[in-house]
């Protein structure tokens, strides 16, 4: 019974080595000359632009997904990355636990669907490009509407209210006549653009242009988010996350900035929803399961909440791994069937051994280390 703090520390030597190795890499990265970093960054971005080309990915060994078209999978992955970047603002920076983030994605997608689809009741049939800003704006408004009454709550309670709201949106989507439930909206227009020979750029068969579009938008969004975090706004968010009372007493209008965090996160989700609807051509209530919200949140924390790179890696990896399981068979068992089982287990194990995420914020990592030292004797 007289357990001590020693055993866990001993057990972790192997993990520590790994961790040290990673830290060394991160150190090296932070001390590398500017141009080296730029070259590497450009190389990484170029890699991701090249990725959906079959001429390229067929040489990548096990990376392409065996069970579904890789380009289409990459599109899904990119949407998840965009969502993770958005949720990271809310959860990672402002520290607001949002379990209903996918609801905003639904708002974005439905706005596009309702305003563009011929099966919609209002028959506006507007082009996609015109509707995108409307979708983003509406999602922001819905973020503010959800945030205004709920952002007074903290921690777990906020998580539950957001979860409740997302579920209400889903039930409304299923049950209300206007949102067409499972019947959904079809023939949603694609983004505009034509090749010289008159073929549309954003056709049905080739998912690459969509992927490139999302990838480009991700880069823009990341630049925007970086701008925010390196400003008064970002400082306000982090100070709220760190100590909300102290932030208030230092003159931070916490409510306003929490609302902004919610609204910016929502806007990004709305953009993702609009892109999804434009690519998918069809939107119905089956697209918005609650599990998706949980997956995105887990992805952000998995990658390393509070760190943009972490969120990107988390969102990408989680979405990719789920698809990667498709078509893999082990001991006569189709692994795809078990993907969420693994997902759940990974979350548990991860929180025990690496709660700060794969690529943590340097600040966060220190916090977790410190907390461990304060373990109460014998407990």
């Amino acid at each position: 019974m007289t357990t001590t703090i020693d055993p866990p520390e001993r057990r972790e030597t192997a993990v520590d080595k790994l961790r040290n190795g990673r830290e060394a890499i991160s150190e090296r990265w932070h001390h590398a000359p500017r141009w080296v970093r730029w070259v590497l960054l450009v190389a990484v971005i170029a890699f991701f632009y090249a990725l959906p080309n079959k001429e390229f990915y067929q040489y990548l060994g096990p990376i392409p997904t065996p069970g579904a078209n890789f380009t289409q999978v990459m599109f899904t992955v990119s949407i998840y990355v965009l969502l993770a970047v958005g949720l990271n603002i809310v959860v990672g920076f402002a520290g607001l636990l949002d379990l209903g983030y996918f609801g905003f994605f639904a708002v974005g997608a439905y706005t596009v669907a309702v305003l563009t689809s011929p099966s919609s009741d209002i028959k506006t049939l507007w082009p996609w490009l015109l509707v995108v800003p409307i979708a983003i704006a509406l999602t922001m408004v819905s973020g503010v509407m959800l945030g205004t009454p709920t952002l007074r709550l903290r921690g777990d309670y906020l998580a539950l209210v957001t979860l409740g709201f997302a579920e209400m949106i889903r039930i409304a989507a299923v049950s209300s006549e206007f949102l067409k439930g499972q019947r959904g909206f079809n023939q949603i227009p694609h983004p505009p653009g034509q090749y010289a020979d008159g073929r549309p750029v954003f056709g049905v068969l080739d998912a690459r242009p969509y992927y490139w579009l999302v990838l480009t938008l991700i880069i823009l969004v990341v630049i925007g988010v970086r701008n925010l975090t390196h400003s008064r706004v970002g400082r306000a968010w982090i100070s709220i996350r760190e100590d909300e009372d102290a932030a208030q007493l230092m003159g931070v209008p916490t409510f306003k900035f929490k609302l902004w965090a919610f609204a910016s996160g929502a806007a990004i989700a709305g953009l993702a929803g609009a892109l999804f609807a434009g690519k998918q051509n069809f939107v119905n209530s089956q697209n918005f399961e609650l599990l998706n919200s949980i997956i995105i949140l887990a992805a952000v924390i998995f990658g390393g909440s509070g760190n943009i790179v972490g969120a990107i890696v988390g969102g990408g990896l989680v979405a990719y791994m789920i698809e990667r399981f498709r078509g893999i068979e082990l001991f006569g068992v189709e692994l795809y069937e078990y993907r969420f089982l693994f997902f759940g287990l990974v979350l548990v194990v991860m929180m025990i051994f690496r709660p700060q995420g794969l690529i943590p914020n340097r600040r966060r990592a220190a916090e977790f280390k410190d907390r461990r030292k304060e373990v109460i004797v014998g407990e």
Partner: protein
Amino acid sequence: MNFDGLFSNFGELTTTGLTQGAIYALVALGYTLVYGVLRLINFAHSEVFIAGAFAAIWTWNGFGLDQNSQVSGVGSILFYLLVAMIVAAIASAGTATVIERVAYRPLRKRNAPPLAFLITAIGASIAISEAFGVYTRRLPEGAPILVSSKPLFHIAGVPIDAVQLLTVGAALVMMFALDQFINRSRTGRGIRAVAQDANTAALMGVNKDRIILMVFIAGGTMAGVAGLLYDVRIQTLTYSVGFLLGLKAFTAAVLGGIGNLRGALVGGLLLGVVENYASGLFGSQWKDFAAFAVLVVLLMFRPTGLLGESLGRARA
């Protein structure tokens, strides 16, 4: 809005609501106990419930009973109920223990932040639920009809049947037992002490780990009984029903004042009734919507619930 639908069925909606609410209440106890002691929303509690519900069905299967079986004779019915109840309670308490040991205790030992607990709870919940899903091939499993739901008698024209009596009765008995346990026993006192002030409790010689384990076991037992009652009432079980039921049970716990045992009862019954009224008023598809609306409105305007928070602060 269909006021006629509400008023013409008012009595039946109320009794079904109360029956359903009794099950919510039993599950809510688990949330309330764990929250009271650890300030943690044990998301995985819904799967503790599911474990009990499956255990009961599989017990009956073990006796050769399936969904087509008819059992007669009060003695054998009681026997099957009792055995299944014990197995279900053990299965649920066992699941709860495993969750606490495997998922939460390592986090406590590492002094992890609350967010880590929440994510772990979600992870554990998904993993357990999926394990049942894979095992049952995501198909529903049927329970034998042990208790007839033919009306026994009428109160003011509203029929009352044996399932309703059994469900509400068993829930009340279990609650009473738990209440006595918390308020009268030495362990119960330890639970209340840890809930009110864990550090001081440790200074009194209370072993917090043991108390936490007891809390999970007590909550698990209640969830196991709830699982059995669910089987008796619904007679079919799918691996995925836990999530929604768990969420509603949590709503019930918050409604009554989380951490407050008697609040869980009040909250459960109230929620069951409210959502049934809503399904009468707006249509069944809006039933869950109503439950979530209650949760959201409540958290926004009175997060301490109807009876106030905290285990023991208001004498449990």
